[in-house]
């Protein structure tokens, strides 16, 4: 392989022509052979050699100018860039300038070359080099480059050159934007400075140039009737303008501090409010250019002119220039912020109206537009129009822009009308428009109570909702026979549906005086239809309609509680405040009619005919949602409430109790009469019943109901309920025990639990007495009943409350021995093992804080036996299976088991924190810390680094570890060397984990460890003793003490690696005690770091920063709270100062 370096010498004597030509030929050959797939490795090596050779510029220029092979020219440009970025420091100022202007001139001169990608590459090379030298060049030098570019863009050298100039600016702007910049091996600070400088000094000028370029060709484009070359330049100018408007303007001043930690990624991406729309907030300086100069008027008229040309040759709806123009217009719709003066609202209003008047033609008249799309017209314009509406909606309030709202709502309404056919574009349009409505309506609903929507808006909303219901029902009946629901996407489609329904609900509530009566009517119709045709016709369509209707109504009249008690929605509360008789209250009528409908499911004949499992799911879902808002609402005693009639009607003293009774009957029916319908059972157990018993005043009534007793009885005796999914049995057990809170006193509550569960425990005990236990235990039916029982016990255990604690305590002690025996018997039945462990975990969690000393000892003893038994079964065990998926399953099982064991240990730990036992002050109790360490030692060998890849296990493990180290560092210090290094090894692993919480836990553990050592040694004690001092290993090499090791790795992490800024304060807390413990090492590390800096400025900056870290703000060498706070502050400013130049991109 020939070398290029001696041939392409830039600084020395000019190389002779023959050499240049042979280099060119070698590169051309390599490029062609890559294309032909002949020996690509060697070809790549040849090209790489060029890029890596010393000063290959002469050769590259020669290739660019003379080669006929486009790929070779492309590679030459790439080589220039690679070499120049690498050798930038050695190049003379003249060389640098020459390289840039060579590239610039090359693009201008060959602007009409057909191989566009070469031109783009060369101009991006120019942009990259210009950026590389950005901070070195004087303003005059930069101006001379830009003068050249400006000349080109102004169009005096022709359209092609104009295009090339705009193209160059495009690469330049994207190069200066941190997220799209190329890596240059320079500190992040450099990229940041370039960005600021460009935004401050040039961005606006570039925008004007692009605008002027576009303006200059506009007339010619408008006048001509076919595609002309100017279109290309105009399109590029529009693209550049869009790109500049997309610039991440520095209006957020907080951006500077956070970008130091993980550069390149915008921090505000996850803010929930700005859904799809990014606001464009360039600031007041841009007002003149963007708003007041009539710029938008020009843009709109340009697009309007383009629209007329779509029939002409070379233009169509999706031609590049039309697309760019539309995008730019949509972008203008999101223009907001200080660019509009706060004292001149009209200006913004005018701006939006102007845009709207331009956009309206794209979507209005909606029916005509959608007809045109159906008959083959491209939908992109309409979608862009919708997007623009969304952008506008996002930045305005309906109260301010009355007329704006009116027009949008009209448009939306009409569009929804045409929306029923299932085509992708209409779905997309619908989603965008719904978003628009939400954006308009959400502020209305937030503005406490009084709906501020103007009357036109309200009637539009009402009409719209009627249309929505109609089309949803039509869609429902149309899809009634579709059986192709892909279960993989089910969850996603459910949540999408949920989202859609809640936006429907918003619309309905905006005009609830019309929509609620409308819903009553529709529901009554459906109800009537289904009862009329019973048994005679197939009414699947009807069922599906009712199903959707129930979902819609549920969303309209009640909110999702999300863990809290939802209130009656504001809109509904205020709307009907003048209706005082319950019989006339529309919401009451609606609810009553649905409950009446649901009640029909109790009739076996009706159930058979009408209540399919799916419809029943909707019924149960509705009842759950409805009851958490309306049933015996705690608000009913508040006098001043505007919806008093409503909540009183379903309150404790009115219809509440009968309705509750009906609901329980319906749930029992759902559980017993629908065998094998897991979804229905899940809804009933987890959703409806579970939510009911969470409210104490409902429990009081529940336990008095016969229907509830029926349910409890069925649970204890009915074999049908043993056939429920075991998870649902758990939930049911929990629910039933929770309801005990409604009983009079703790005595009767305990008795209730004993009656409910006692015999199950007895069954377990008796099972173990059988002498052939070992053989019958493996029978599937026994496994099933043992699993059911364990799940039920677990459910009960997790329902522990002070009132029922005694009974559950007895229950647990009664099954302790059986649990150990079962663990032995079922050691190969992973599912049962897991249930056993989870039961113990939940039981200990519920009970530990109430246990008396002797009980604690018994429980601890039991847990240790359990851990040892589990460990003895599993350590060193290899599963021999041919099936990789079974092996994976085995691994997952192991992970779940270990996680349960860790939870068990954490639960035991909590005894030291919360203790309600009567003798908690006595000291002779069990030493929990030792127990937990012992437990940890038992299970640590089972946890492999592979298993720590399971995030939850990892999380649990590290939170337990950090808890232990924080609370009992002295116990750790007493561990033997092996155990200690094992524990700390995992800590080191966790420190470099990706999960913030894990790292945080490790940092907390480190802090605990180091501060313990520091305080102890200052007090003259040994602290961590030999662990901290460092050891001689078997080979006689001195190993560093663990604190030094962690100081090193923590500094490495803080200075050079990526992490979340949230971690800085906990890192500071860990670093301070480490520094104090290992001051000598810290000094050494600091000096090394300073020595490594390439130049004096950075050296002194770093030295100052390091000095500031330990001495600013009167930091002292103690571990007081105040000192920690000072150090946090110091570390943050230290990192902001130094990470900019220590980290490179």
């Amino acid at each position, binding site marked *: 392989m020939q070398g290029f370096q001696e041939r392409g010498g830039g600084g020395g004597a000019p190389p002779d022509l023959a050499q240049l030509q042979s280099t060119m030929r070698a590169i051309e050959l390599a490029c062609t052979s890559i294309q032909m797939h002949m020996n690509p490795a060697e070809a790549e090596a040849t090209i790489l050699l060029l890029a890596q050779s010393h000063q290959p510029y002469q050769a590259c220029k020669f290739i660019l100018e003379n080669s006929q092979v486009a790929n070779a020219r492309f590679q030459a440009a790439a080589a220039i860039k690679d070499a120049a970025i690498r050798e930038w420091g050695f190049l003379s100022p003249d060389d640098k300038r020459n390289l840039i202007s060579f590239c610039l001139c090359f693009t201008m001169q060959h602007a009409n070359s057909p191989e566009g990608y070469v031109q783009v590459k060369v101009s991006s090379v120019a942009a990259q080099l210009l950026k590389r030298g950005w901070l070195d060049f004087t303003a005059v030098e930069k101006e001379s480059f830009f003068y050249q570019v400006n000349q080109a863009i102004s169009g005096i050298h022709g359209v092609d050159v104009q295009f090339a100039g705009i193209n160059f600016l495009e690469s330049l702007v994207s190069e200066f934007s941190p997220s799209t910049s190329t890596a240059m091996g320079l500190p992040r600070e450099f990229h940041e400075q370039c960005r600021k400088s460009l935004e401050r000094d040039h961005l606006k000028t570039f925008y004007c140039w692009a605008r002027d370029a576009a303006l200059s060709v506009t007339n010619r484009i408008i006048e001509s009737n076919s595609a002309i070359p100017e279109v290309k330049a105009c399109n590029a100018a529009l693209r550049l303008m869009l790109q500049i408007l997309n610039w991440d303007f520095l209006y957020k001043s907080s951006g500077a501090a956070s970008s130091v930690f993980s550069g390149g990624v915008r921090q505000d991406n996850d803010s929930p409010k700005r859904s799809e729309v990014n606001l464009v907030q360039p600031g007041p300086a841009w007002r003149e250019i963007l708003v007041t100069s009539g710029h938008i008027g020009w843009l709109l008229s340009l697009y309007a002119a383009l629209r007329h040309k779509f029939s002409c040759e070379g233009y169509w709806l999706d031609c590049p220039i039309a697309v760019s123009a539309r995008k730019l217009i949509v972008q203008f719709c999101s223009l907001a912020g200080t660019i509009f003066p706060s004292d001149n609202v009209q200006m913004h209003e005018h701006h939006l109206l102007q845009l709207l008047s331009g956009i309206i033609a794209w979507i209005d008249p909606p029916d005509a537009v959608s007809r045109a799309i159906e008959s083959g017209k491209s939908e992109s314009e309409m979608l862009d129009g919708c997007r623009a509406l969304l952008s506008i909606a996002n930045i305005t309030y309906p109260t301010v822009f009355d007329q704006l709202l009116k027009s949008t709502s009209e448009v939306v309404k009409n569009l929804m009308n045409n929306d029923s056919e299932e085509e992708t574009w209409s779905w997309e349009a619908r989603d965008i428009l719904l978003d628009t409505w939400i954006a308009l309506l959400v502020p209305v609903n937030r503005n406490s109570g009084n709906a501020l929507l103007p009357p036109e808006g309200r009637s539009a909303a009402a009409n719209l909702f009627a249309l929505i219901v109609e089309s949803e029902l039509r869609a429902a009946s149309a*899809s*009634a026979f579709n*059986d192709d629901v892909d*279960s993989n996407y089910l969850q996603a489609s459910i949540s999408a549906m949920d989202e859609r329904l809640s936006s429907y609900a918003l619309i309905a509530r905006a005009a609830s005086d019309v929509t609620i009566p409308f819903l009553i009517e529709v529901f009554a119709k459906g109800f009537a239809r289904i009862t009329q045709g019973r048994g005679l016709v197939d009414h*699947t369509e009807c069922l*599906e309609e009712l199903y959707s209707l129930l979902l819609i109504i549920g969303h309209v009249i009640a909110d999702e509680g999300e863990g809290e008690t939802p209130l009656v929605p504001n809109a509904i509360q205020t709307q009907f405040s003048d209706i005082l008789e319950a019989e006339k209250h529309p919401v009451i009528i609606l609810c009553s009619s649905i409950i009446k409908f649901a009640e029909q499911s109790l009739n076996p004949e009706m159930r058979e005919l009408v209540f*399919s*499992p*799916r*419809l029943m799911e909707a019924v149960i879902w509705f009842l759950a949602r409805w009851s958490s808002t309306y049933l015996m609402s705690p608000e009913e005693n508040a006098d001043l409430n505007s919806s008093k009639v409503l909540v009183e009607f379903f309150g404790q003293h009115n219809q509440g109790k009968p309705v509750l009774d009906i609901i329980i009957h319906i749930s029992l029916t759902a559980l017993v009469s629908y*065998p*094998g*319908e*897991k*979804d229905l059972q899940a809804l009933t157990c987890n959703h409806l019943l579970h939510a009911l018993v969470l409210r104490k005043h409902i429990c009081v009534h529940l*336990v008095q109901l*016969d229907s509830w*007793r029926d349910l*409890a*009885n069925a649970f204890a*005796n*009915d*074999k049908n309920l043993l*056939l*429920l999914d*075991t998870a649902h049995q758990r939930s049911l057990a929990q629910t039933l025990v929770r309801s005990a809170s409604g*009983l009079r006193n703790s005595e*009767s509550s305990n*008795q*209730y639990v*004993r*009656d409910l569960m*006692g*015999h*199950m425990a*007895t*069954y377990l005990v008796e099972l173990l007495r*059988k002498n*052939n236990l070992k*053989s*019958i235990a*493996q*029978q*599937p039916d*026994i*496994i*099933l*009943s043992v699993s059911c029982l364990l799940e039920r016990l677990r459910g009960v255990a997790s329902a522990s409350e002070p009132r029922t604690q005694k009974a559950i305590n007895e229950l647990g002690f009664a099954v302790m021995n059986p649990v150990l025996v079962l663990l032995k018997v079922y050691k*190969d039945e992973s*599912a049962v093992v897991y249930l056993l462990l989870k039961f113990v975990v939940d039981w200990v969690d519920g009970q530990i804080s109430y246990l008396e000393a002797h009980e604690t000892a018994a429980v601890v003893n039991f847990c240790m036996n359990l851990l040892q038994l589990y460990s003895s079964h599993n350590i*060193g*065990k*290899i*599963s*021999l299976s*041919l*099936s990789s*998926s*079974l092996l994976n*399953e085995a691994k997952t099982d192991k992970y779940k088991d270990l996680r349960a064991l860790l939870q068990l240990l954490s639960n035991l730990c909590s005894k030291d924190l919360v203790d309600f036992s009567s003798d908690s002050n006595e000291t002779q109790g069990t030493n929990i810390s030792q127990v937990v360490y012992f437990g940890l030692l038992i299970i640590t060998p089972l946890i492999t680094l592979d298993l720590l890849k399971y995030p939850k296990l990892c999380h649990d493990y590290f939170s337990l570890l950090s808890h232990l180290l924080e609370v009992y560092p002295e116990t750790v210090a007493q561990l033997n060397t092996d155990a200690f290094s094992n524990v700390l090894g995992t800590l080191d692993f966790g420190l470099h984990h990706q999960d913030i919480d894990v790292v945080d836990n490790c940092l907390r553990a480190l802090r605990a460890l180091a501060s313990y050592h520091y305080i102890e040694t200052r007090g003259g004690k040994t602290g961590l003793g030999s662990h901290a001092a460092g050891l001689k290993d078997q080979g006689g090499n001195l190993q560093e003490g663990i604190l030094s090791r962690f100081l090193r790795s923590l500094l490495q992490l803080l200075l050079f690696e990526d992490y979340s800024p949230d971690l800085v304060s906990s890192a500071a807390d860990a670093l301070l005690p480490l520094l104090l413990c290992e001051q000598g090492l810290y000094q050494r590390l600091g000096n090394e770091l300073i020595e490594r800096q390439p130049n004096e400025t950075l050296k002194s900056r770093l030295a100052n920063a390091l000095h500031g870290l330990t001495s600013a703000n009167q930091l002292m060498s103690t571990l007081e709270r105040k000192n920690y706070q000072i150090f946090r502050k110091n570390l943050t400013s230290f990192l902001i100062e130094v990470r900019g130049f220590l980290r490179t991109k």
Partner: protein
Amino acid sequence: MYYEKKTRTLANTICAPPPSPFFFESNAIVPQITVVVVSSIANGQTMSDEEHHFESKADAGASKTYPQQAGTIRKNGYIVIKGRPCKVVEVSTSKTGKHGHAKCHFVGIDIFTAKKLEDIVPSSHNCDVPHVNRTDYQLIDISEDGFVSLLTDNGNTKDDLRLPTDEALLTQIKDGFADGKDLVVSVMSAMGEEQISALKDIGPK
């Protein structure tokens, strides 16, 4: 409804006096659980009482499989698919038509051959569940012809079990044995077949 008569019992219990035990007390209500085992130790197989009459008598009373409602079979459980004992690795439910009844879709892995098998059963119907037994034996010897010699609990040896044919599994056993470790093998049997399923090292010899 049969649970009506029980209403009084629980109604009482909530208020005060202790009830008579009613859980799993009556055979008529919970048949699966009150199993009276008539064991025939000679062949190591069991037969349960009158409630389990689903296996034909010709099968010498060996309850190789038990019926269980499809809806109650969970992941990690066992199921018979196409006559083969399988471990369930995936269960999903769907409906027959939108307003029809639920059915369960099982994906199982044959516990002996590791082949993947699938089945769809209405969730209220019964499936066969294999009786899978595991017994631990100490490994005494590995013979040249691919058989192992195992020590049973009562001191006899069991010599009729083949080594796995898969190379990787084979080396795992052979290497451990050659290292002189004390190995316990777990033998899984179901529906008349048996196989070594796991290996455990209980320390050096």
